[in-house]
């Protein structure tokens, strides 16, 4: 019976390879955008003819474009993301070493955002235009206009320096340590993200609570909290799931900045440092990883959406 439900997810899966292909093309082309002589740019002061040849071989810059792409793709299939000039080892290894903190912060931020957004969104929606709703709206308008790195610095100033509840930077050891050290960074990411979630949830709750089935539910004589959870929120959450997934790109972008502010050894820091050291293969590799990660998350979001809304199967697709 649930076969039909996941029909459109299957459609997404079919589209997947093309999407991935497109991503690889763009990522590949990225490197070809380098103005001038890439080897010169990469090696800088250490430029030697021999070194230049090495670079050109490694990047395959001597071959025609299509062959370059072919080389790129075949390497990709073998899990080879290129060679990091700076770290003098495979880009994949370097990336692998940096991926965990980033994952942790992003997930942490997503969870925090949900914890913040759900109660606030529901209350704002149920008591719309009340003082809570208006206050929340003002708060979030301001929060949304704040650059995340600035917000992070303020939080550090208040909570790490003056009140000294949280550590200034660093990553901590062990799961509990991570939770503690990464709370501020995750919160910084979560707040602007919550803004979009709250707005969406609020609108969703407002429109759902006007529906007839809410009255039908009340008419049964069930307790109000049950009407709220099983009927109103249960339906309102469906649209929010899409919004959640679509805006996840924001979290990824934000983590780059947050890792800088809080000195976290994650992919974001790696990206930035690689840019300054002109370590292009790493830049390319990180971009690729991020993009594929987002594609994966979007897929998961779609599945969750289908699970929550049985009508999603009936081919309305996007």
């Amino acid at each position, binding site marked *: 019976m649930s076969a039909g439900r996941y029909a459109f997810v299957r459609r997404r899966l079919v589209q997947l390879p093309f999407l991935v292909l497109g991503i690889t093309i763009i990522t590949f082309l990225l490197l070809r955008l380098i103005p001038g002589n890439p080897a010169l740019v990469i090696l800088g002061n250490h430029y030697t003819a021999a070194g230049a040849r090495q670079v050109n071989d490694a990047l395959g810059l001597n071959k025609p474009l299509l062959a370059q792409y072919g080389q790129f793709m075949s390497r990709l299939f073998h899990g080879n993301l290129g060679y990091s000039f700076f770290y003098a080892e495979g880009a994949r290894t370097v990336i692998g070493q940096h991926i965990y903190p980033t994952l942790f912060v992003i997930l942490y931020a997503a969870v925090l955002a949900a914890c913040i957004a759900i109660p606030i969104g529901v209350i704002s929606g149920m008591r719309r235009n009340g003082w809570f709703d208006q206050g929340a709206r003002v708060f979030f308008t301001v929060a949304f206009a704040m650059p995340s790195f600035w917000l992070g610095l303020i939080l550090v100033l208040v909570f790490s320096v003056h009140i000294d509840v949280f550590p200034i930077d660093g990553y901590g050891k062990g799961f509990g340590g991570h939770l503690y050290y990464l709370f501020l960074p995750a919160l910084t990411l979560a707040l602007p993200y919550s803004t979009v979630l709250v707005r969406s949830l609020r609108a969703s709750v407002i429109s759902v609570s006007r529906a007839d089935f809410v*009255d*039908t*539910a*009340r*008419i049964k004589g069930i*307790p109000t909290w049950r009407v709220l959870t099983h009927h109103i929120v249960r*339906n309102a959450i*469906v649209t929010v799931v899409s919004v959640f997934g679509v805006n996840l790109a924001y979290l990824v972008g934000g983590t780059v900045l947050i890792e800088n502010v809080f000195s976290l050894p994650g992919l974001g820091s790696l990206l930035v440092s690689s840019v300054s050291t002109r370590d292009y293969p790493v830049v390319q590799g990180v971009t690729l990883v991020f993009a594929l990660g987002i594609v994966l998350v979007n897929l998961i979001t779609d599945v969750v959406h289908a699970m929550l809304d*049985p*009508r999603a199967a009936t081919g309305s697709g996007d």
Partner: protein
Amino acid sequence: MSDVADGAPLLEVRDLRTLIPTSRGTVRAVDGVSFDVRLGEVLGLVGESGSGKSVTCRSIMGLMPPGAARISGEVYYRPPGASPAEAERNVLTLSREQRRRLWGAELSMVFQDPMTALNPVVRIGKQVIEAVASHSDLSRSDAEARAVELLDRVGIPSAKRRMDDYPHQFSGGMMQRALIAIALASNPRILFADEPTTSLDVVIQDQILDLLLELQRDLGMSVVLVSHDMSVISEICDRVLVMYAGQVVEATETDRLLGVPSHPYTVALLRSLPQFVTGTRFLPSIAGAPPDMTRVGDGCRFAPRCPLVEDACRTWNTELLAVPGAPVPHLSRCRRQEAVPSMGKVPVPQEVG
């Protein structure tokens, strides 16, 4: 038609008024409505959209959006076996919690559009079980069995299998049946049915009406049927209240209403029914439009559209008058009742104002 029981009023509504503030002014959606619902009867509420019939039911039930309306008046619910204290308490003043206890077990409601009246993301079975479980202590399996029983009772084939379906997998008629099952799960004494057949096609309409009548007889409950369609009302109702612009303009038994209507609006309503139109290819409509509900005041509200109107009508402080010589109670809010039977010879105004 059902057998009218001993006539003890189960529900008494006195001077119900519902005022809805809007940006354009305060809408007097229900303006002084009084009626009784008797044990075991089927009562019809008929009128155009905006006449206040739905709002009346929702106000009585307590389903108006919080803060959206100011409701005044008295509503007494007197089930057999109620204590004197319960019988004299105004339902409109009950707390949320007290009202919740009435919902489902004593008073219930079925809404117009089955598509939006069912939770789209929860299985039908669960929704029915929820209704069953809210006023009883049955075990899970017992509640489930009862739910299947209910679905079966309302005429859903393969009820047990259908429990696992989602609303969008049901047809319109089946959804409405499921809604009725939900409404009846805890054996309420009064069922308000707000346009239950309006979004269904004609064949299904009849089936649903028959079902309602059947259930009403078997369970001995009272039904308040709201509709804008006189033919629906005339099919199963014992008594009818005709509403216009927030007021009751005529009230009597159905047969009498159809035979001896005593208000010009009722006549116009009847005239627009296919089965009552003879000798013409065109369905007469009622010229003009209902009054602006933010600006009604004294005077007959139907006056602008009434073929029997006199100057005095516009300033008359309307009230329901007993129709003289009627074999059953018959009220009409027209001061020219005696002229109404002659309307058969007065042409209905045709052009639009």
